[in-house]
C-alpha cells in the first residue's frame, strides 16, 4: 500500500509547490475561480482538437489546448478594468459557464462516445506515473523560476496595481503573462489530478497561510508546509479507509481550513 501511495505523494508535493504560490496571487487579485475557467477553456480546446481528428493527449492536442488557454489569458488580462463596474469574478464565471456549455455543444457533434472523452480529459492522482511527475516538475520549475526572476513585477501587479501604474509597468502585458503561465500550470495539473483537487491546492494552503500571517515569505513557507502535511493526511486516509484518493485529499483540506480558522479565532482573543 505504501508503495502505491508514493507516486501520488510525489505529485502532491509538486502541486503544493506551485499552487500554494499561485494561490496567493489569485486570492489577492480576487479571481478565485480563474483556474476553473482556464481549465474549462483548455478542455474545450482539447475537445475541439479531438473533433478535428487529433488524438487525445497527443502533442497536437496539447498545443491546441494551450492556445485556447492563451485566448483565455488574453480575455482576463483585458478585462481587468481600472474603474471596476463589475467584479472580474463575474467575467470569470461567464467564461467558465460559456466554455463548459460550448464543450457540451461540441461533444454533441462529436462522432463517437462522449462519455469516454469526458472521462479521459480528467486525471486521477492515484494513477500518476513517473514520466508525468518528471514532466510536471520540469515545467513547473521553469515557470516558477520565471516568476522568481520577475517577482517584483508579478507581485506588484497582483498586490498593488496602483503602485504598478505609477511605475509605468505595462500592466496588461504582465497580466497576460501571469494568466498564461498560470493557465499552463492549471491545464497540466488538471490532466493529472482532476479539477477538484487542483482547485483545493490553489486556494486552501494560500487561504490558511494568509489567515495566519501577513508576510509574504512566511505565507509561502506556511502554505508549502500545510499543503504537504495535508496531502500526507489525505493520502493516509485514502489508503487506510479506502476512499477515492482525490476526494480524500480535498476533504482533508476542508478540515485544515476549519482547524486554522479555529486557531486564528483563539489567537485573536
Amino acid at each position: 500500500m505504501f508503495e502505491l501511495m508514493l507516486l501520488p505523494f510525489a505529485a502532491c508535493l509538486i502541486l503544493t509547490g506551485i499552487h500554494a504560490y499561485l494561490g496567493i496571487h489569485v486570492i489577492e487579485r480576487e479571481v478565485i475561480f480563474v483556474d476553473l475557467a482556464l481549465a474549462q477553456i483548455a478542455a474545450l480546446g482539447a475537445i475541439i482538437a479531438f473533433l478535428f481528428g487529433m488524438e487525445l493527449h497527443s502533442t497536437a492536442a496539447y498545443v491546441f489546448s494551450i492556445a485556447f488557454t492563451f485566448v483565455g489569458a488574453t480575455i482576463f488580462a483585458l478585462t481587468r478594468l481600472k474603474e471596476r463596474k463589475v467584479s472580474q469574478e463575474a467575467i470569470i464565471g461567464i467564461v467558465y459557464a460559456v466554455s463548459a456549455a460550448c464543450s457540451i455543444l461540441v461533444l454533441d457533434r462529436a462522432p463517437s462516445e462522449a462519455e469516454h472523452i469526458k472521462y479521459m480529459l480528467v486525471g486521477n492522482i492515484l494513477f500518476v506515473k513517473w514520466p508525468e511527475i518528471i514532466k510536471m516538475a520540469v515545467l513547473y520549475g521553469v515557470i516558477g523560476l520565471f516568476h522568481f526572476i520577475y517577482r517584483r513585477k508579478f507581485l506588484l501587479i497582483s498586490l498593488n496595481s496602483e503602485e504598478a501604474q505609477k511605475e509605468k509597468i505595462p500592466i496588461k502585458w504582465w497580466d497576460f503573462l501571469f494568466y498564461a503561465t498560470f493557465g499552463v500550470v492549471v491545464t497540466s495539473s488538471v490532466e493529472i489530478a482532476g479539477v477538484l483537487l487542483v482547485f483545493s491546492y490553489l486556494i486552501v494552503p494560500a487561504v490558511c497561510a494568509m489567515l495566519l500571517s501577513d508576510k509574504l515569505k512566511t505565507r509561502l513557507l506556511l502554505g508549502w508546509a500545510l499543503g504537504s502535511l495535508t496531502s500526507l493526511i489525505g493520502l493516509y486516509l485514502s489508503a487506510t479507509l479506502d476512499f477515492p484518493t482525490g476526494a480524500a485529499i480535498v476533504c482533508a483540506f476542508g478540515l485544515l481550513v476549519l482547524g486554522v480558522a479555529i486557531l486564528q479565532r483563539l489567537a485573536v482573543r
Partner: protein
Amino acid sequence: MKNKLSLALMMGYLLPGLVLATDKLEVVTATSDLADFVKAVGGDKVKVVSLSNGSQDPHFIEPRPSMVMQVKKADVLVRIGMDLDLWVQSLIEASRNSKVMYGGPGYLDASRKIEKLEVPTGKIDASMGDIHLYGNPHYWLDPENAKPILGSIVKKLCEMLPSESEYFNKNYEEYLRILDSAIAKWEEEMKPYAGAKIVTYHNSWPYFTKRFRLEIIGCVEPKPGIPPTPSHIVSLVKKIKEEKVKVIIMEPYFNLKVTEKIAKDSGAKVVVLPPSVGGIQGANTYLHLFEYNIGKLAESLQD
C-alpha cells in the same frame, strides 16, 4: 517489510503466471456478471472479486486504492473490453502486475470470442476517433453470449491452474446445460412479444433485443452520454406514439425524470431493468438477473 517485498518481487520473476497447486486462483473481474461466470466455472478453486457492483454504471467507476491492491495480487483479470471499462486499464497500469497486463498470462478480454454488433463498416476516417471502433460493448445482455464468455474463462482457468482442468470443465459443462434450458424458457416467455417495438435510454440493449426479437426504434440519449435535446424528445415522443411503443427500458443509474416525462407524453411505460448482477435486490446471479428482467419485461409488454 522490505524483505517481504523483495521476496514477493523474486517470486514474481521466478514464477510468472504459475500458481502453486494448493492455492486458490485469485481472480478479479471488471463487472459482477463476469465474477458470477468465474464463480460458476471456478467453484471453490478460485477466489473472485468484482471491481464494480451491479448498481454502478460500468462506464464510470471511481477507482479506490483497494482496487489497485486487488489487481496487484490477482492471478487472472477478466474485463469486458471494447473500451467499455477504460478505468480497468488505469488500474492494471497502477498495479504494475505483469501477469494481468495486456498480453500477460492472466489477462482475459471476455469480448474476444463475441460476435460483435454495430461495428462500424466501411472506411473509418480519423475524425471518428478511436473510440467506437469495436462495436457495441454491452454483449453480456444476450444470454447466448454467456457461452463464449464462459468458454474463454474456462480456457484461461485451465491454463493458469492445469491441475484442476477436469473440475473446471465439469463445472463449465454443467453450467451450459442449466443455461441452455434457461434460455429456452426465456425465449418461450418472450415469444408472444416477438417483433414488439421498444425504446431504450442508453444504447445498451441491442444484444438483448436481438436475442428476444424485439425492435429498438430509438434511444432517449441522442448519442451515448449526451442528454436528450428538446427536438430529440419531441421527435421521440412522436415516434413512440406512431409506432405504438409500449415500453422504455432504462438502467437504474440513468435519469428517471427525463424518461418519465417522455413516457408520460407518449403513453409508454418506463421499465427499469438492471443490466448487471446485483443491480437490483434478488438478482444475485446471472441466471436470476435474466429471470427478473424477462419477467418484468414480459409483464410490461402484456398490458
